[in-house]
């Protein structure tokens, strides 16, 4: 039980995917202009990331390892992620049109979120079990959502600030992300 809690805290705070490992920066910078879209992106990513962590574990354990094809795992995981994303998209489209309208735009974008592939690759590198892998995926998604939502609320405020001309827009976004990353270094050593 304690191991699982450590994995969760580690994935959410200490080894936060965006601010500590610098993965998944494209949606972090790209979808953080408005709080509403950030929340939509966060929920879609949480869903897909957890599912992708589970299925990549299954593919690795039941297909790649028995066939001795571990060297293909990057390509295999990309394929798995794309399939999961496409499946999620189709499933949500049919089952819940409302949710699809909220998430629709973001779903295909998640395929290119390197945090998703990062979770799958780190899980195999650390030889985590199925439960640990899915929990790590869920924790990574929670950490991603946390910083994305906080960052978008902050960017809504930065949009009206009297920022010097050269630093407006993405430039000040990058500087802010850097300062936030500094603050997250305070969590080092927690687990």
């Amino acid at each position, binding site marked *: 039980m304690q191991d699982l809690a450590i994995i969760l805290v580690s994935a959410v705070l200490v080894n936060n995917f965006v601010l500590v490992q610098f993965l998944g920066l494209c949606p972090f910078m790209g979808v953080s202009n408005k709080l509403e879209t950030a929340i939509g992106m966060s929920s879609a990513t949480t869903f897909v990331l957890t599912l992708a962590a589970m299925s990549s574990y299954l593919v690795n354990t039941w297909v790649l390892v028995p066939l001795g094809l571990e060297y293909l795992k990057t390509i295999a995981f990309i394929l798995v992620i794309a399939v999961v994303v496409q499946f999620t998209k189709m499933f949500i489209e049919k089952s819940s049109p409302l949710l699809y309208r909220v998430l629709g735009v973001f779903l295909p974008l998640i395929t290119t979120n390197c945090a998703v592939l990062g979770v799958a690759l780190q899980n195999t590198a650390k030889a985590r079990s199925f439960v640990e892998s899915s929990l790590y995926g869920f924790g990574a998604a929670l950490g991603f959502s946390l910083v994305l939502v906080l960052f978008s609320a902050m960017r809504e405020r930065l949009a009206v600030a009297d920022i010097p001309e050269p630093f407006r827009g993405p430039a000040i976004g990058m500087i802010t992300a850097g300062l936030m990353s*500094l*603050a997250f270094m305070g969590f080092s050593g927690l687990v």
Partner: protein
Amino acid sequence: MTLFPRVTSPHGHAPQRTDQVMLRVLLATLPGLVALTWNFGWGTLINIVLASATATACEAGVMALRKRPVRFYLSDLSALVTAVLLGLALPPLAPWWLVLMGVAFAIVIAKQFYGGLGYNPFNPAMVGYVVLLISFPIEMTTWITPRELLPEGVSLPGLWQSLQLVLPLPAPTDLAVDAFTGATPLDSFKHNTGLLTEQFYQQTPLFSEAELAGFGWEWVNLGFLAGGGWLLYQRIFTWHAPAAMLAAITLLSGIFYDGGSSTSAGSPLMHLLSGATMLGAFFIITDPVTSATSNLGRLIYGAGIGILVFVIRVWGNYPDAVAFAVLLMNFAAPLIDNYTVPRTYGHARAKRATVKKD
């Protein structure tokens, strides 16, 4: 010709212009500054002088670059407040370049890149502190032993010797630097391995000589508490954020005190009166720009800082965590504001500050 100048409401009798507020904040740091100087020598004063000069120069430089009126922006004293707070937080007798680098980062990047006073999302002094702590951990954790705990025959360096240590001057020959540097109470408590708190206190002069918690540091913190109380009385800020932060620290340390066992996280008194607790509670988290705006928001904001301070102090790598906790909650403040919009009298409760428009 008008006999009486026409002034719009509100007709306040105690004008709170920015420079007046800032001046009171500066005055309120005095008790803490006196306690720091009494216990740790001239270092803090030298820090403050260096920091103030750097902050003024940086602020003036940026304003000149942006073609804004330099004198107007310097006279609101906000750069000076940042400089003094950072100067108080840095270890005494820190080398001159450390102070310069921290203040320059605070003023230029954390404040002016965002458009200056009123727009900066992070507290500039704490950004400067964290940057220095991460970049130069050794210089930033070298503290001075309180004056009265120094071994026989060793005294704190005088003013000229301190200047020789800080500035790029030939080092004083008649001074052993190692003799008067030492750990802070929080730092030494963090390295307690397996002793009961009571035994550890008896073995460590920092605690056994102290009245309440941590020799020297208790007076520094009480000084900042006094200054903060005066600011509260002057209505410079409301009680919500400091009270929530101190309550959170007291509650958590009370729960994890564990009766002073060998794995105790430290007594509430130690957590309240050590490190930067009081400086943070009354001078840093009350910054109106970077904290949450509504009263409920400030309660959440302050409690969040208290929790983070305790968690990082006890389970993290760093002995003190006020700077990190403040930055983390600065980061969360816009979201807190978004969901704690106060109800306007006569209107229904607002859900969010910004509403999605399709």
